[in-house]
């Protein structure tokens, strides 16, 4: 009888914890908003390539290389995959024209840059049709709660609850290398609340905010450069 009662209690506790887990899991989702502003016609052939570069001129923050890589990888796979040149390979080959202090900031600067015969030659070698400038960052705000952990001779465990909000805001400016003009801007804003309940062990329920911003932005960019 005692064993049955303990089993029933454990089962009820497990069910309630599972329900709580699912409840929190539902809460730990991300909201992503994509905005597109088109300035000119686009289109790409199988011989053309796209290079995605991160803006790193600002003192306050710089676009993470991992995010740039994520967008590039996503655009280069799946149906209608696009040739994407790795950022570092392109920046090294174009040295010193695309360094943080020397990179063109406006499409008019690209026109001046394309007047350099060596630059034009390297661009043609890569088959670059579009340059995509990524600018943005992910910030963590609204940290709340606390988790306490203790270890004793009989074992250890944690108890508590923590939560925080991640906010990703990225902008992609697309330049057409053939005409040296800006053809559009796509912005991606993603927010998500992450939770960390701890009952003996911490259970991280992380909102994949930056990953969602990356995939949404990459999918939209892919359609954009293909003229869709």
């Amino acid at each position: 009888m005692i064993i049955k009662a303990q089993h029933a209690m454990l089962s009820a506790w497990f069910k309630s914890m599972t329900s709580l887990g699912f409840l929190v899991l539902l809460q730990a989702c991300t909201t992503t908003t994509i905005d597109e502003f088109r300035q000119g016609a686009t289109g790409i052939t199988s011989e053309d390539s796209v290079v995605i570069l991160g803006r790193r001129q600002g003192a306050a923050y710089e676009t993470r290389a991992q995010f740039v890589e994520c967008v590039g990888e996503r655009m280069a796979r799946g149906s209608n995959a696009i040739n994407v040149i790795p950022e570092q390979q392109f920046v090294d080959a174009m040295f010193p024209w695309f360094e943080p202090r020397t990179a063109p900031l406006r499409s008019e600067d690209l026109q001046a840059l394309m007047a350099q015969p060596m630059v034009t030659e390297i661009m043609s070698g890569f088959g670059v049709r579009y340059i995509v400038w990524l600018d943005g960052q992910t910030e963590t705000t609204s940290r709340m709660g606390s988790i306490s952990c203790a270890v004793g001779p009989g074992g250890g465990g944690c108890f508590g609850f923590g939560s925080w909000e991640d906010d990703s805001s990225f902008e992609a400016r697309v330049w057409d290398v053939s005409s040296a003009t800006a053809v559009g801007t796509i912005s991606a804003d993603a927010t998500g609340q992450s939770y960390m309940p701890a009952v003996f062990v911490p259970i991280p329920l992380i909102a994949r905010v930056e990953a969602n911003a990356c995939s949404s932005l990459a999918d939209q960019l892919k359609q954009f450069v293909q003229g869709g």
Partner: protein
Amino acid sequence: MSNCTVTGKRAAATTDVTMMKCCFQLGDLRRALLSLLILLCLASCAARTVNVQGSYPRPNIPAIPLVLGVYYGEGLSDFVYTELSDRGEEEYLVSSGDTHEVLFNTVLPAMFERVVVLDSLEEAAARGVDAVFVPRINEFQLGMPQKTRLDSYEVWVRYNMRLTGADGSYIADWVMTAYGKATASSFNTAERGINDAAVAALRDLASNFSLGFTGVPDVRDWLQRRLSQ
């Protein structure tokens, strides 16, 4: 009884010897542990050396049709920056002389038709160079995450660049700055973070130097005179 006493003394003597051996062994162990502790303390107290190492791309710019001599003298080849801890003790020694030579040996041959590395300034005239370039580090600053409370290692360098004729006559003398940073969370060790921030700063110098060289007023005037001859 006497036998018993003797036996007892022998037994005691045997125990003393064992105790002495044991004490001797314990003493050895204690000394070894103490030595190890001192060594560990010395190792942790000693300043860590960072020999900056990196590779730099060759600039894609049109070469100036002149022969340049370059002299890596005092203030560049032997430059070592010492980062002090909050207690005023030497914490890191950042040696960047070799990597600066690698940088200039990559950048200058792309900027000039021919580059001659000089062992001394006196041999410039004999080597038939049009001008002599002497770079020098004036100031080096290091930003450590634990001190700046930022998530990055930062390096800031101020240079004095000097260009003279083969005879040592003045052509130009100007100041340049370079800045580089590396995200702290990407590195397991501070040495790696310092190295990458320094390499980023040197890359910044290379881009700015190669594109801005002909824009330095005194250099521009000299080039106009020289190339029109």
